[in-house]
């Protein structure tokens, strides 16, 4: 009879299996191979840096007539983050809803039918990418902006109290906004729906908070997700906001809840 060679394929077979590290690698390939990912990330960086420089230039121009800065020089150069949060949030949403809208999710979940490794890989990878890009952008905006302001000797230095925290905090806030977007994308699975929800949470809730009676507002407004998260970007303590790290921790907490809901739904729902 013919002898069958089982040893050779078996040895490779042991090596061929799904691992968390390999799923991360797969997600890395996916992230790099989409043009829209690159463009949206570049947009977020460009907005942070570009607006930072622009605001610094405007401030210098106005300085010539008024003689003083209207905002502190740190907050001024980091303001681009308010617009950049929309770009990074949309990117977080798209990284997952793009798979649902095209049907790619079925290929992804067939390759990794336990599903949760995909969620962790996407979140972990995007956390690193978004944090590195956003912190770098915040530093560029701050340093570039200060270079413009220093011509009028109204700039700030990284060594001034709270400045380093505000700059790094701006990058961290943007990264967490991206993760919140991604968690909402996993939960809602539809691009328009997830983006609308994200913008509602970040932009509309604070506006609604302002119509509350004053006695309520102080108990509610500082705890709204974006208000809490942005506390870390502020140089000076404001009586109406939480302490920088307390606020940021609360924002991370909200995002963690969204991630937990996403994990339960990804595991339970039909793909």
């Amino acid at each position, binding site marked *: 009879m013919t002898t069958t060679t089982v040893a050779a394929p078996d040895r490779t077979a042991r090596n061929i299996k799904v691992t968390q590290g390999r799923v991360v690698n797969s997600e890395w390939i996916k992230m790099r191979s989409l043009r829209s990912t690159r463009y949206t990330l570049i947009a977020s960086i460009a907005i942070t840096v570009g607006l930072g420089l622009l605001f610094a230039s405007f401030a210098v121009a106005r300085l010539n007539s008024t003689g003083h800065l209207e905002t502190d020089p740190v907050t001024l150069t980091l303001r681009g983050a308010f617009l950049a949060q929309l770009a990074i949030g949309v990117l977080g949403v798209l990284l997952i809803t793009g798979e649902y809208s095209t*049907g790619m*999710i079925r290929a992804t979940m067939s390759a990794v039918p336990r599903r949760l490794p995909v969620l962790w890989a996407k979140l972990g990878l995007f956390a690193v990418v978004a944090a590195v890009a956003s912190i770098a952008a915040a530093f560029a905006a701050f340093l570039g902006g200060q270079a413009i302001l220093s011509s009028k000797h109204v700039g700030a230095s990284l060594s001034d109290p709270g400045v380093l925290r505000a700059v790094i905090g701006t990058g961290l806030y943007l990264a967490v906004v991206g993760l919140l977007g991604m968690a909402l994308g996993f939960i809602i699975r539809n691009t328009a729906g997830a983006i609308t929800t994200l913008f509602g949470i970040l932009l509309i809730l604070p506006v609604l908070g302002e119509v509350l009676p004053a006695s309520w507002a102080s108990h509610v407004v500082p705890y709204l997700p974006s208000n809490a998260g942005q506390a870390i970007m502020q140089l000076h303590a404001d009586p109406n906001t939480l302490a920088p790290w307390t606020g940021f921790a609360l924002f991370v907490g909200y995002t963690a809840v969204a991630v937990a809901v996403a994990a339960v739904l990804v595991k339970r729902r*039909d793909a």
Partner: protein
Amino acid sequence: MIEAHGLTKRYGDKLAVDDLTFTVQPGMVTGFLGPNGSGKSTTIRMIMGLDAPTAGSVTVNGRPYAEHAAPLREVGALLEARAIHTGRSAYSHLLALAATTGIPRRRVDEVVDQVGLREVARKRAGGFSLGMGQRLGIASALLGDPATLILDEPVNGLDPEGILWIRNLLKALAAEGRTIFVSSHLMSEMALTADQLIIVGRGRLIADVSVAEFTRASRHSVRVRSPQASVLRDALAGPEVTVSTPALDVLEIDGLDSETVGRIAAEHGVMLFELVPHTASLEEAFMELTSDDVEFRATEAADLVGAGRRA
């Protein structure tokens, strides 16, 4: 080997898959046949762990699909709806899928060549024609060199060249000893490629038969045209015989062969203008079988014959 036991899926009020039990044997092509909306795609999604069954279970090579250490190595699937991000190149798509399981890059090159996508592999999959999309789907299915392949409506919407390509590929893959489970709503297509048939209608199992048995069991009838049709009709009457009259001078007879009909006509002195034996095509047999699935729950070939006669 794929084994389904009492597999059931309910979406709200609608029972998409109703208590399906079947086994797909290794080393042959099994056709999964049923009209559109009969629960084929849902069944395949449950095999692949994409949908959770409401009741029952399905295993691949002895385990639920999701519990395998390297699922892509066990089963490759071409799902009916496209499962490709339109913004990504075919090559990156395959590379990303391969990466999840540690399948080497050279295997990606192999499958790209095997399905003939070498020249467009670096182009965005969104610009692919239907046929190229199917080829890419099949390349994804072959990535892990799996012993079992599941293809949901692989020829749907393809041009004749694409259909021929799929047909030959399925035969070649089966010849390599792989288990092939291929769904279709076209009986004629299955007759050319399948060895075994699992037929479903409205989510229920109608038949689990070999193609050979199915062909043998399909209905035979005789068509007669005669000016004395009513005389002949009375002469032919018998317990196993049904006669219908589509036109005044035409009879369609089930249950007797053409020789018998001719002999009875001669014995009664009935003049015949036409005597045509008619074997139902597989397509007709399939349509007859699925036209009213409530009536047909038989899984035995013998029952199929009876079912055919009753209709």
